[in-house]
Structure formats: C-alpha cells, structure tokens
C-alpha cells in the first residue's frame, strides 16, 4: 500500500523525523486552521495529494503568500486530475528557506534479499535522472539485517558523498530513524526527496514516500488506518489484481501473473493491445468475477474481453459457474464480445458448463488466438 505524502509524514513524525509545519486540508475551515498552525510569515505551500510522481511539473504544487491565495490554490487543485489521479485533498505547509536539497531512500534489493539505503546530495529531482547523469552522487549501502545502521558505514557514506561535516550527525540520525520506520512499518520503500537543508542549517523532510507491504497490513494497525482511502483496493479486497494500462482495447482476464503477461504479449503480437488486465488468482468466485465484469463493462475503451485460463489450484468448473453467475447479474446487459479458453483442472466440466450456457470455449491457446483474430476482423 502506497501512502500519500501527508500520511507518510504523519508516520515520519512518530519517528521524530523533522517535517514542515502544516496540515492536510480538504475544505475552507481546515485551511484556516492550517494558516494558524503555520503562521502568517511562513505561509505557505499548497501541495496536491496524489499517488504519483511529477506533480510539481503538472502544476500540482502552488506557493502562496496569503490565506486568500491559499484558498484559490486549494480550490484550483482539489478536483484536478494529475496523471489520471484525482486530487481530493491538499497538504498545506510552511515555506522553507532552502539552502540545499538531498535525497534518502531505503528500499528492498531483491537481488540481495536485503534492504538497501540510497543517499545523495543531489535531491529534489527524479533519482533515476540523478543515477543516469551523476552516478557517483548516489551512495548505496546494503543493510545486512542489523538492528541498527552501523555508524561507521554511515560516516563513510556521507563523507565520501561530500556532505559537510556539520550535517553528518543530523543526516545519520534521520537515516537511522528512517531505517527503524522501514523495519517496524514493514515498508518496501521509504523515501525523503527532497530532504531540505534550510538556510539556518536544519534538515527537514520536505516530501515523503512510504510504501508498506500489503501482506503485512494485518499487523500494521496505524498504517491500516489509512486503508479505506484507496478505491483501487476494492478489487483487491475481492482477490482480483487489477492493473490499468492507460490505453488499449482488450480486457484480459487470466489466472496468474505469468499467464497474464504472456497473454498480453500475444494480444500485442496480433496487432491489438490490452487496455487492462485482471488477474483472478484469488478472486475465483462470483463476487470476484462480478467486480471484474463491472469494471470491464464500465470502461468504454474496452471493446473485447479475452479470458485465458489454465487452472491448477483453480478448478475450471468453478470458474465457469462463477462467470455465468456474474454475467447473470447483468440481466443481459453485459454485451462486450468475449473469447474464452478454459484448460487444466476439471477443464472438460468447465467447458461443458459454458457451452450449455451458449458460450463458445476453446481448450488450446492457439485456438483462442485464432478465435480472437477472427473477432478482431469481424468487429472492424
């Protein structure tokens, strides 16, 4: 689960990581409170809260001087869409007097199966750009499951990156708090970018990211509190992994990520393109299929539905029954053309069930692709 900036900063605050004064706001009265918290002199930054990068370039951050300007900015931002994500609230914060911008991130290195710390004196920009242009400006340290970060390694790191000595203590301190939060909150990513050095020599986390392992949410009560805010969790709650691919015309329904990816590739090879995919791995039940079909029905871009299933753990007769039950609920209103393949455990029974209900079903992948080609030709 990816947290919003303001949520990440709430967690940061629990670990005494310095953050700017401010408040998350979704209306006029809240803004007034934010203004009071920040004070007239330092007012203010109005930052749209969206789970995507690059909101600055997209106009999602406004600097304001007065409460009125703040109100204008808030009203302009809320409701706006940034990279397809609607802005529902803004974070209003003090304006910092910036001397330098740095970068600290802890994430997982799947190759080492260990956490890895990245730190850079070049913050405030896309870290992949930094990695490309100034690879030597990123310090990397693989953390060998220690309880604490070893100070000597941290000193080496910040020293070699050219950080000034007077910043070492605060940098190492903040890094070690981040690491503690990373471990305790079971994060997959925790990041400060930029970590701002103010003109009076203080370090403040001006932006924050915190992605928490979905599988650990059951034992992360303070992160789970944020859970209801995410609408894309609805499908996941029904066991369906949904990924929106922005453009395309085919809705792909499979079981298993590998099968899904391969099917998308094959669709592409036939000159078409998937608009989204739904991995039903854990949603093989009427509710899961209903949610999946609802989504496919509601998205006008999706012209075709391609179902490609090879079941091991999932039994094809159950899948067939679930699909039919879900379609029934549309009362004949689910009309998008669909090609189907059911193979694997109890495939014969599943195919029979679908055929009895009037659907054509393939058993071989090649047949499915032929049928799909045919459908593309018919519709065009």
């Amino acid at each position, binding site marked *: 689960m990816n947290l919003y900036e303001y949520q990440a900063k709430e967690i940061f605050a629990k670990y005494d990581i310095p953050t700017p004064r401010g408040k998350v706001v979704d209306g006029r009265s809240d803004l007034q409170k934010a203004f009071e918290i920040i004070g007239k002199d330092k007012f203010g930054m109005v930052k749209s809260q969206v789970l995507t990068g690059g909101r600055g370039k997209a106009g999602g951050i406004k600097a304001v001087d007065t409460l009125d300007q703040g109100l204008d900015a808030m009203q302009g931002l809320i409701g706006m869409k940034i990279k397809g994500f609607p802005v529902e609230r803004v974070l209003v914060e003090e304006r910092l007097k910036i001397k330098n911008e740095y970068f600290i991130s802890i*994430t*997982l290195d*799947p*190759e080492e*199966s*260990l*956490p890895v710390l990245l730190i850079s004196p070049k913050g405030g920009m896309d870290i*992949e750009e930094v*990695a490309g242009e100034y690879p030597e400006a990123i310090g990397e340290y693989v953390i060998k*499951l220690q309880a604490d970060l070893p100070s000597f390694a941290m000193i080496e790191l910040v020293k070699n990156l050219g950080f000034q000595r007077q910043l070492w203590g605060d940098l190492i301190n903040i890094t070690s708090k981040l690491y503690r939060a990373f*471990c305790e909150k*079971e994060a*997959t990513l925790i990041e400060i970018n930029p970590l701002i050095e103010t003109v009076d020599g203080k370090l403040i986390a001006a932006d924050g990211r915190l992605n928490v*392992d979905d*599988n*650990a949410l*059951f*034992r992360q009560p303070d992160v789970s509190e944020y859970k209801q805010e995410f609408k894309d969790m609805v499908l996941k709650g029904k066991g369906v*992994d949904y*990924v929106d*691919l*922005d453009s395309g015309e085919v809705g792909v329904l*499979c*079981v*298993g*990520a*590998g*099968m*899904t*990816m*391969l099917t*998308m*590739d*094959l*669709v*592409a*090879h036939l000159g078409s*393109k*998937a608009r989204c*995919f739904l*991995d039903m*791995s*854990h949603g093989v039940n009427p509710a899961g299929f209903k949610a999946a079909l609802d989504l496919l029905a509601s998205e006008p871009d999706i012209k075709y539905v391609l179902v490609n*299933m*090879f*079941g*091991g*753990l999932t039994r094809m007769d159950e899948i067939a029954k679930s699909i039919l039950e879900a379609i029934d609920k549309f009362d004949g209103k689910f009309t998008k053309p669909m090609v189907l393949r059911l*193979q*694997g*455990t109890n495939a014969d029974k599943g195919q029979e069930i679908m055929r009895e209900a009037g659907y054509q079903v393939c058993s071989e*992948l*090649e047949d499915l692709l032929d049928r799909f080609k045919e459908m593309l030709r018919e519709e065009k």
Partner: protein
Amino acid sequence: MSILVDKDTRVAVQGITGRQGSFHTRLMLEEGTNIVAGVVPGKGGQIFEGIPVYDTILEARLKQDINASIGFIPPPFAAQSILDAIDAGLEVVVSITDGIPIHDMLKVKDELKDKRTYLIGPNTPGLITPRQAKLGIMPSKAFKPGCIGVISRSGSLSYEVCDELSKANLGQSTVVGVGGDSIPGTTFADLIPLFEADSETKGIAIVGEIGGVAEEKAAKIIKEFCSKPVVALMGGESAPPGKAMGHAGAIVTRGKGTFKSKVEAFRDAGVRVVHKPKDLVQALNSLLSAHR
C-alpha cells in the same frame, strides 16, 4: 534420476488437516509421493489417511527420517513454519503460501544462508518429479515423466508449458516453480547446476518474466556451467515498464530486470528465447536432435 525430490523423498505435510492441506495431500499421494508425516500444532497423535500427525516439524523429524516438507500455512504463520523446517534440517522445504510478509522473508533468507535447505517458494505451485513425488498443487494431468527440467516463476504458465511437453512426449524430469514473490527461496540460478548434473535431464525449459534479476543471474550460470540445451519462454514484452504486474516479483526496479535485458542475457548465454508454449517445445525438440 531427477532433482531435489523422487520416490524416496520422505515428506512431511505442514498443515495436513486443513482444507487445502488435506485436499492436496490426497492428490500428492495419488501421484506416488512418499508422505510419511503430517504436522499440525495441537493435533499431534492423530492419524490422517494413515499418516501420523505431529505437533511440530521438529518432533516429526526426531521420530521419523523425513527430509522434505510442504506447507499449507496461512500467511501470518507461514514464515515461522518455514523457519521450523529449516531448523529441523530438511533438505527441501516447499511453501505454497501466497502473501507472506516481505520482512518475514528477509529473515527466512538470512536463516537460509549456509544451510543445506532448498526452500521452494513461497507463492509457488511447488515442485514435481512426475509419477514419483509431487510436493505441490499442480494439476497432475499436465505432467509426464521425461527428459526436460522445467523451472518457472509462474504457476499457470508452467502448467501450460508442461502440458505441451507432455503432449510432445518429451515429458519432464523435474518441474520446479520458484514462486512469484520478490524474495524467493531457491532461484533459477540455484537450480541450473542441479539439472546440469542430473543424467535424466536432457534439456532445460525456463519460464521467465520481467522484474527482478533471476533470469539475468540464471543466464550467467548457464553460460559458465551448462552444457545442455536451454530454451526460455519469456513473458512481459508488452508490459509497460514500472507497472506493478500483480506479482511482486514482476516489479521493475531501478532499470534492471526489463524484458530486453533478460532476453539479451539469455541470448548471450546461448539460450533460445520463445514467446509461446508450443514454440518452446519445438525449439527444445530441434535443439535436442541437434545435440544428440
């Protein structure tokens, strides 16, 4: 021959009396798997399908010469059950569980260092040496004894591939699903040398996908150590970079693990890369006849 498991492997099933555990224990027995113990805390002393049940894997190990286990354990308890099996010194430990917290797996991986245990999974359909031992949940119908060693990150796709191999009468020596999690126990690279050393395995099929660096590492090992023909079925060419692919393992991180880098690594190692299960079978067949 085969790798990791065969008819002499003495298997304990962790969670044998659960819904999943009991269902698949029966299917595994049907495949010929030598299941000699079950483990369910609090149910020690019971008998399930003629198999004695113990409270802990350690107790099972102390009482019987088990050397492998498969666990059907809910995510919150799965890592501990894996650690218990590692602690008991089992040689092969299979974890079916999908959804083990990543930080739990970091501890498991740390514990696996310098241990002799091969952890298969988690989030895997398991592994199978057809008609000898199935420690997994794959549909037996798709598998047939034969000469191809198969390793796959994807469950469903491996069934498809094995089904084709079976139909083509190549069959499989052993099929290992390494699992879809970003932090798997045993990786492709760990398995290549085992297949290389196995006399029954004539060729190797890899079912890979984007994300992680398992394919790149496997390619390196293949280039160095592998004399047998290898074909890889790769998925994810059309996946947009940076999108979460459902599998945590399919997350593209820091520019590594792209479709392109994997395909290049494989080609550099002399591995034929294909895009459809049927093509994989065809490629293996032609390489095997050239190899003879």
